[in-house]
């Protein structure tokens, strides 16, 4: 990745701190200044703009519908956040979704019942994740090229199996995973997403495992010196991301009711954008799950709102691309301006 080694010219401006506090600053003040607070503000703004722009927006069923277009991506983003936090990346997630969907189509065509079909999807996701994990940990390949390779490999296998055909027959009951409702307007997809978001928050922020993941992202060597099983944890993270992609594939396939090899094309971009927009540093180490969840909501609302206004999909992708660059560029620019301002006032 394109990180410059620190050049000698850019010497640290402050001497290293004498004391190393467990927590920095006041908790409330820190919270208000945080990335998450900014996202929350953005979320409120987008929400308000949407309700002003379209009279149909503030309807509970409409809002419930709005969740469908981002929950599947957000589920993968939760897992990918861990991978990126550990300093790696997985670009093959959309390829996994396509391959898992194809396998489910084949299983359905073979007359398997709904649960078995979903099981096949999850297993294929797990298998793909394990394959990525082996490449990155056992063979020690850089994850960016390895997963660019497996991205074409997984989707390529889907193309090889299906060609220009499609699976459109799914068993009775399979539709529930993508179209079912748990209670009134609360969809199955959204419920699963909320549960997984809570679980991911718990794991990342309140367990040793979560701390180890971030330690690896900051410095794999230092983590290894501290007794963290770096390779095993990285492998687990790729495995989980594969599983999450498998789950997303079950939901997407169920929602669409059909499989083509081009399913979920370009999703890797949206998913990576979600994670980065959520404040996770692409170089690893920094980031929170609530940030990723908020980013998922913001992106979901932006695309849904633009959809209500009849903006074509490709224009939305410009917005997503610009958002991605803006969120990483703005903090850099802001920091630079602040430094210049401070120097002038000093």
């Amino acid at each position, binding site marked *: *990745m*394109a*990180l*410059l*080694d*620190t*050049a*000698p*010219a850019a010497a640290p401006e402050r001497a290293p701190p004498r004391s190393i506090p467990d927590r920095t600053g006041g908790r409330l003040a820190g919270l208000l200044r945080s990335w998450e607070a900014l996202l929350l503000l953005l979320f409120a703004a987008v929400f308000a703009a949407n309700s002003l722009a379209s009279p149909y927006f503030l309807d509970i069923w409409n809002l419930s519908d709005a969740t469908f277009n981002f929950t599947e991506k957000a589920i993968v983003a939760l897992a990918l956040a861990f991978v990126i936090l550990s300093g790696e*990346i997985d670009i093959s997630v959309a390829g996994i979704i396509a391959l898992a969907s194809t396998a489910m189509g084949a299983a359905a065509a073979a007359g398997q019942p709904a649960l078995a079909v979903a099981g096949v999807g999850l297993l294929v996701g797990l298998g793909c994740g394990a394959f990525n994990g082996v*490449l990155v940990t056992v*063979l*020690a*390949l*850089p994850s*960016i*090229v*390895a997963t*660019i*390779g*497996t*991205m*074409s*490999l*997984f*989707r*390529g*296998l889907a*193309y*090889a199996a*299906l*060609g*220009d055909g499609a699976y459109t027959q799914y068993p009775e009951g399979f539709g529930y995973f993508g179209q079912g409702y748990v209670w009134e307007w609360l969809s199955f997809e959204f419920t699963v997403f909320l549960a997984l978001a809570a679980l991911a928050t718990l794991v990342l922020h309140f367990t040793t495992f979560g701390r180890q993941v971030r330690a690896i992202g900051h410095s794999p*060597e230092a983590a*290894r*010196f501290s*007794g963290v099983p770096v390779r095993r944890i990285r492998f687990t993270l790729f495995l989980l991301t594969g599983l999450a992609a498998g789950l997303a594939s079950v939901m997407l396939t169920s929602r669409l009711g059909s499989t083509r*090899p081009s399913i979920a094309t370009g999703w890797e*971009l949206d998913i*990576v*954008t979600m994670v*980065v927009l959520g404040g996770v540093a*692409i*170089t690893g180490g920094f980031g929170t799950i609530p940030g990723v969840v908020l980013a998922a909501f913001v992106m979901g609302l932006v695309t849904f709102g633009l959809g209500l206004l009849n903006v*074509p999909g*490709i*224009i939305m*992708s*410009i917005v*997503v*691309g*610009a958002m*991605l*660059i803006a969120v*990483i*560029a703005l903090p*850099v*620019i802001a920091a630079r301006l602040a430094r210049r301002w401070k120097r002038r006032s000093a």
Partner: protein
Amino acid sequence: MSEIRTLLKARETLLGAAIALLLLAIAARAPAFVAPANLAAVFTDTSILIVLAIGQAAVILTRSIDLSVAANLALSGMAVAMLNAAHPELPVIVLVVAAMGIGLALGAFNGLLVWRLGLPSIVVTLGTLTIYRGLAFVLSGGAWVNSFQLSPAFLALPRTVILGLPVLAWTAIVAVVLALLFFRYAAPGRAIYAVGGNPTAAVYAGLDPGRTMFLAFSLSGTLAGLCGYLWVSRFAVAYVDVASGFELDVIAACVIGGISIAGGIGSVAGAVMGALFLGIIKNALPLVGISPFWQMAISGAVIVAAVALNVRAERRPGRVILRRVDRRATLEA
């Protein structure tokens, strides 16, 4: 003697042998494939990939990556196609220069973000990938520019045969020769290796890593712009999804050619051979009776295999940080 040994160990020699083996295997099934005329046609078909791989090689050598090349190609191709449709009287050379200029601007935008703001190139180009392709849509309103709207001169240039090869192939040959000279003898070319190999040492040597990256992105963008014209002219149509996903083929060509994603290691010759390897596979699949739908899976597998081989070759003896306790106990006993 030692020179022969280093030649034998060079990645390029291995890759050349792999290409020869591939051709032999194909010849066994379809002898017509290795006829000189057909090989020339395969080379011509791979020309665009070769030119793009040269630009990508420069970027990867500086420890960056440019995912936006195919989108850049689509946007600059669309722009010149529309320009040609609106003003057929403009000479073709103006359009070629315009395509390269647009490509340069788009590449320089990536480069500026990486240089001035220090943003990671993978995120920047992931973003500009969608922005550039989206702009192609905005520019064209989603409409196609078809061959009857393009002027005969616009369409004829890449097809014009000089000394038995079309201009398209000659463009690739000239680009390869210039790149070989640039990376070997020009100061900026050497700076690309220096910055990728060790940025800190490069700074001590008086080089600016950021500016060198900017240069690499500008080069990649300019070549993508040139390929935008070549692509649209060759296929006689411009639409938003032109060359969609082609950036992966370009990166694959570099990776197969032995260019290390960690920067500083690799050569133009390698990138060109990597592109040829992919081009041969793509053209041979239908001939040997394999469904073209397998192409994506095969190139994915080839990428993974090539990366694995490269990493093996580059691996430095790592250090074991935590030895297994029981083994140490037996050693001490």
